[in-house]
């Protein structure tokens, strides 16, 4: 049941999909890997939409050069753990939801435990090594995985449904070499918002998802494209699952 406060808070989106679907968001649990460039807009918009429980994981501290894009954090947060400002910001944005912010580095020893019981996993990571861990965890636990990545004014997003769509390894069998990347903050906003939209659509079951479709955002030229994807039947991460 939605409270009087919730009916008011979410009134504009309830107009789109109705109270029953808003309750689905209230009962949903979303895991967000990273409280950085992508994690910031994703978590903000999912909190604003009323996702009942959000877990956000990041082991890093806020640095000054994060602040052109990581809008969960402010100047006064530099030097502190990102999860501290993430928790504060999201709880102030929406006190009605549960937010759990965990300062941990994700690895093969903890990733399954971290994502256990969640309905959706959002990729807010900055390297493919950890993305592959999350990809495998999503497949192992049969949890929808919302991939995003950016560089400069470019971004990409796709929605991975284990057992149904190409997984991350099907599309990108090898990681690009890890390095720092240039980025205009708004690019993170575009892709993070696309990811948040996909999560909401998935949870309330409306519209069509970026399943087997890689959306490419070219912010430099104002173009959006989609590339069709195919599963790899011999994928080392998802074949036969």
């Amino acid at each position, binding site marked *: 049941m939605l409270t009087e406060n919730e009916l008011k808070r979410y009134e504009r989106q309830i107009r789109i999909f109705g109270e029953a679907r808003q309750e689905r968001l209230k009962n949903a649990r979303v895991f967000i890997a990273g409280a950085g460039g992508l994690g910031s807009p994703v978590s903000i918009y999912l909190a604003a939409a009323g996702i009942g429980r959000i877990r956000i994981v990041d082991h890093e501290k806020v640095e000054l050069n994060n602040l052109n894009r990581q809008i969960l954090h402010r100047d006064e947060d530099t030097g502190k753990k990102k999860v501290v400002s993430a928790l504060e910001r999201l709880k102030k944005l929406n006190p009605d939801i549960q937010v759990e912010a965990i300062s941990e580095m994700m690895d093969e020893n903890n990733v399954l435990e971290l994502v256990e019981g969640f309905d959706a996993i959002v990729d807010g990571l*900055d390297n493919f090594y950890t993305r592959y861990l999350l990809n495998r965890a999503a497949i192992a636990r049969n949890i929808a995985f919302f991939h995003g990545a950016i560089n400069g004014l470019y971004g990409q997003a796709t929605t991975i449904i284990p057992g149904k769509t190409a997984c991350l390894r099907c599309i990108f*069998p090898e990681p690009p070499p890890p390095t720092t990347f240039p980025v205009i903050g708004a690019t993170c906003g575009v892709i993070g918002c696309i990811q948040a939209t996909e999560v909401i659509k998935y949870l309330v079951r409306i519209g069509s998802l970026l399943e087997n479709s890689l959306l*490419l955002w070219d912010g430099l030229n104002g173009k959006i494209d989609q590339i069709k994807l*195919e599963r790899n039947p011999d994928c080392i991460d998802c074949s036969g699952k």
Partner: protein
Amino acid sequence: MKVTVKLFLLIRDALGGEGEIEVRLNSGATMSDLLSTLREEYGLPDEIPLRRGVLKLFEGKEVKEMVVLKDGRNFKLLEGLETKLENGAVVALFPPLFGG
């Protein structure tokens, strides 16, 4: 045979903004043949200069910092440069993105 090549992001810009090219190839042509044709006849560069550094598309014949999909499948998961192409195949080229 004819193969459609779709270019995205700064690889599209490197070829003057052309997003889609129809390339004629001999029957039995491979991905290697297509990439050679794109380099020799369409100006696909070996590397694209960035403000800092370069995006290295090729190192010799090897594809480096470029994602190549044939009909939605990564060519490295097919037969790599020896992947056979068919009439009507769609090949997508774009740079790898990994930030977040």
